[in-house]
């Protein structure tokens, strides 16, 4: 059934009394795995195949962006062949280009389709778990149709096992649906931030359509109609569609519940609500006028409230249009055009498949371990929920040193199990030199302040104490174990201690979503 309409405007205000109320409503409404009968298990793609049909599962199981579970194992790459754009967004500034800058719309170098094809082969040979090639800009792929489709053509000939996907603003989508289908592109992402032109006028100053620049409400109306038409045309053809929405507090935060309904009714497969990235140094309209992004809890509350029968994506890293690697890591610096052109590339399909078979075994072992752990919780019911931050470098294991983590994955633990609910970027803490303690205090604790514990492969004594002072339990006893299994095991102990009175369970504060460039990477 449709999600209840929950006003989010109250959360934007300094007072957070309403937030607890909202979280409570969401908790009562549904939770991961608690829905039974007609409701869709809200873990959706996160729980592996779950209730997906075999055909859909076949399409998403190796796609890190379409399956949360897959993103621990499989990598993607974007090729920046599409620099031109046909709309202007207030959160985008095309003039900015810095290697340390990580957000969509920014790339280090443009590629021709031929260079892109070579790069794909080079990456596929180096990273056998790279299964997906996306074109996401840095402009709009469908504002550069020749370059985009030429790239797909070249890659489908040389590396036919690689899935093709593209990400568009949707303005030109209806004109290209047939071509998209003819190249077997079966994943298309459309960025839809509004279905109401009055909201759109605050996000899009103009669009360029049919040789004319449209502004304000009229522009937003055309854009919205074209986006929804394109979405319908794709889903009619059985092409999986993900909808990206940027959450802009005070502008479209409440409205995104309506967007969610509109795209769900048109057959979108997955909805990805992302936090606005906004800082003055980006030179965007929103950055310069002080428009803030959402806090971690505001984002989660909105995602939870939209999580009815539709899968919500929570593992998006808002990557660049030239990103390479697992989500959350960026290996693009290894594959500059100069490096790629100098590489001797031999595309070995067999060794790629052999590698991926090993990955599949690991995935199944992980799922079995999670299931076994979950069975120890059978029959347990409690309102206690905690968030756990995890340091990982992939494969679904707790395998990263606290000091080396550039991000933490966030899991929500309850009697229903362990559910991935997000990730938090942090600067590298282990940089040597000065200010380590301040970096720990200021960056990491703020980023995971809503978590009861942080799971790491290893951690030093000092940071462990600082975390303890902030009420965060640093846990290294699950080093190199599977994440979800460990989260459930920890939660079971936690619950026992709460019941025995050894731990007083209370609500924790909000956390910050980190903005801006990496200071070290």
């Amino acid at each position: 059934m449709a999600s209840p309409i929950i006003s989010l405007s109250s959360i934007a205000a300094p007072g957070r009394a309403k937030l607890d109320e909202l979280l409570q409503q969401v908790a009562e409404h549904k939770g991961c795995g608690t829905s039974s009968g007609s409701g869709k298990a809200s873990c959706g793609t996160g729980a592996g195949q779950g209730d997906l049909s075999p055909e859909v599962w076949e399409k998403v199981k190796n796609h890190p962006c379409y399956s949360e579970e897959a993103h621990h194992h499989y990598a993607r790459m974007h090729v920046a062949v599409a620099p031109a754009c046909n709309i202007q967004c207030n959160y985008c500034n095309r003039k900015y280009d810095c290697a340390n800058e990580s957000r969509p719309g920014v790339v280090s170098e443009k590629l021709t389709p031929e260079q892109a094809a070579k790069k794909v082969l080079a990456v596929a040979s180096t990273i056998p778990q790279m299964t997906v090639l996306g074109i996401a800009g840095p402009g709009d792929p469908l504002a550069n149709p020749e370059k985009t489709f030429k790239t797909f053509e070249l890659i489908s000939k040389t590396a036919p096992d690689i899935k093709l996907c593209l990400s568009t603003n949707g303005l030109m989508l209806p004109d290209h649906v047939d071509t998209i289908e003819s190249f077997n592109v079966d994943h298309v992402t459309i960025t839809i931030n509004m279905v109401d032109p009055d909201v759109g006028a605050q996000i899009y100053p103009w669009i360029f359509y049919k040789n004319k620049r449209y502004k304000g409400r009229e522009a937003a109306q055309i854009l919205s109609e074209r986006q929804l038409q394109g979405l319908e045309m794709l889903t009619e053809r059985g092409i999986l569609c993900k909808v990206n929405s940027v959450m802009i507090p005070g502008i479209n935060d409440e409205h995104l519940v309506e967007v969610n309904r509109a795209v769900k009714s048109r057959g979108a497969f997955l909805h990805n609500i992302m936090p606005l990235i906004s800082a003055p140094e980006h030179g965007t309209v929103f950055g310069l006028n002080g428009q803030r992004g959402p806090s971690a809890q505001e984002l989660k509350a909105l995602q939870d409230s939209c999580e009815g029968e539709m899968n919500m994506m929570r593992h998006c890293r808002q990557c660049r249009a030239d990103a390479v690697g697992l989500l959350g890591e960026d290996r693009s610096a290894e594959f500059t055009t100069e490096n790629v052109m100098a590489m001797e590339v031999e595309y070995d399909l067999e060794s790629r498949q052999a590698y991926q078979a090993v990955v599949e075994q690991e995935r199944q072992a992980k799922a079995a371990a999670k299931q076994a752990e979950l069975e120890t919780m059978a029959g347990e019911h409690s309102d206690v929920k905690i968030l756990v931050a995890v340091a990982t470098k992939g494969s679904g294991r707790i395998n990263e040193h606290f000091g080396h983590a550039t991000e933490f994955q966030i899991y929500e633990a309850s009697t229903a199990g362990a559910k991935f609910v997000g990730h938090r970027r942090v600067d590298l803490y282990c940089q040597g030199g000065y200010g380590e303690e301040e970096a720990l205090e200021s960056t990491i604790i703020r980023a995971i302040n809503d978590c009861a514990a942080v799971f790491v492969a290893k951690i030093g004594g000092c940071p462990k104490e600082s975390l303890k002072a902030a009420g965060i339990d640093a846990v290294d006893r699950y080093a190199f174990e599977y994440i979800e299994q460990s989260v459930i095991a920890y939660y079971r102990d936690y619950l026992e201690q709460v019941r025995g009175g050894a731990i007083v369970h209370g609500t924790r504060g909000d956390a910050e979503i980190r903005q801006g460039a990496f200071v070290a990477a």
Partner: protein
Amino acid sequence: MAYRIVASQCTGCSACEPECPNMAISEKNGTFVIDPAKCTECINYFDEPQCVAVCPVDDTCIIDNNYPRYSA
């Protein structure tokens, strides 16, 4: 009789190139330039100059005062 592109502001995004009805725009050292001999300011083609309308950076495609205004 022509528009010109302020090179320091051009992002090199190439959006203008295919929109020009006169094929007057080409890439040069990473940014784009307009051939003044070919530019007609889009007069008789469109209501507004296409490079100006599509350019993501305001005041980057501007009238080149070194030439008299185009008249068809």
